[in-house]
């Protein structure tokens, strides 16, 4: 596994740049990662990231968009506004979680 360093943070990532150890994540690191893609994290951005951290700590898997909607109470269109394009993938990356996957 490659190891990355960013502004004093050291963390292991997979080939796609997703953290492979959720314990190496911090809110400061998330903010630095977001800056790499020109996103400034405000409260609206933080809410789904914090939900994903808490939810995945309990379930062991990255929550789906639908779970963010039905369990987290987030509006899907709002998530697309906050994180245009591929919101779940981007939020998983920022939250230090694996991207959602199938079995193959």
């Amino acid at each position, binding site marked *: 596994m490659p190891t990355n360093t960013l502004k004093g943070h050291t963390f292991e990532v*997979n*080939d796609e740049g997703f953290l492979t150890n959720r314990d190496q994540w911090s809110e400061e690191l998330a903010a630095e990662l977001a800056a790499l893609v020109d996103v400034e994290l405000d409260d609206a951005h933080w809410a789904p990231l914090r939900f994903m951290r808490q939810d995945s700590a309990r*379930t*062991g*898997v990255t929550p*789906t*968009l*639908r*779970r963010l909607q*039905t*369990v987290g109470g987030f509006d*899907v*269109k709002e998530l*697309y506004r906050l994180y*245009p*394009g*591929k919101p*779940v*993938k981007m939020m998983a990356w920022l939250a230090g979680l694996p*991207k*959602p*996957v*199938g*079995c*193959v």
Partner: protein
Amino acid sequence: MRRVLILGAGTAGTMLANRLADQLDEGWTITIVDRDDDHHYQPGYLFIPFGTATAKRITKRRSRFLPSRVAFVRSGISRVRPDDNEVDLDDGQILGYDWLLIATGTVPRPDLTPGMGDGSLWYRKVFDFYTMAGAVALHDGLARFDGGRLLVHITEMPIKCPVAPLEFAFLADDHFRRRGIRHKVDITFVTPLDGAFTKPIAARELGNLLEDRSIRLATDFAVERVDNDHSRLVAYDGRELPFDLLVTVPLNTGQQYVFDSGIGDESGFVQVDPHTLRSTRYDNIFAFGDATDLPTSKAGAVAHFAVELFGDNFQAAIAGKPLPNAFDGHANCFIESGRGEALLLDFNYETEPLTGRYPLPVVGPMRLLGASRINHWGKLLFEQLYWQVLMRGRGLPVPTLMSMAGKHKED
């Protein structure tokens, strides 16, 4: 008398009933509940639309596969009351239990996507194939379809048998080729994930399969609704995919009584310890197979391997001792890849599908994560093993926990 109550007489429930009938002495009663007496070989749904299986062939009576000492109660389930150790049935009966084993699977919920189940095109141009009714209706839908845009679509994960939609796309390619109309059909595989194959080694090995068969791919597609007026699948990000035939896998949830009883998560899946399958909230409840929130595939193989490990654990649970066996999330499955070939996968919680050989006695080593004819025969043969071996409560000569034997390990 002590009482075991099994909810659901499908793959997991039937295996449990047979195992427990052998294991428990005369001091126990075993009762199993299901709403009907029709046991479907669910992997067969995939073949019904293409006419290579029929409803009649893949349906047998549940009661045929239940031992005589097991009482079979035919009713729907309305509620589990875990604090009272009782289950209310739709027919008004109340069944008490000392131990409750939940194996009621998952249900497709087309009603949870606007315009899907409640749309005017449902079972006219929009079909599922995860139910007998859907698979049979799609058989006619496919026969009527003589060209145009076919979407093969997954609403959201998790779904039962996660590779079945891919298999459907491959078999549809074959089907249209055989009918001589493949050039008139545009097939697109639509997924909420970021690829058809999301595990690195599978993506590397199988990434070209869709392209080789001229199947388009639409990724990261979070469906918002089905537009019935214009026959379009609409995503939250504004993308609209027109279709002449939409084959969708609706959102999968647990059964309604799981929601109503407060014994599951927000999707109606029973929360269990991933290694023992014991409810995280009630010590005398275990859940199996698709009905659980296990972070592995919803597949019969998972139910089978977990049931194999349950016997010793149940004896320990009865005695109030720690449970000795830990399930590893082991799953394996054949994936029809079309053209008379199939792929074989073998994986668990920790290990993604790898290449190599799967050492099977008698039929010989089978190729992992690559297409072969023998894998296809294996898939066909499996239907007989399902009824004659697994549903009789016997084991298959394969390791219960995932083995690395024959697999090519990668860093």
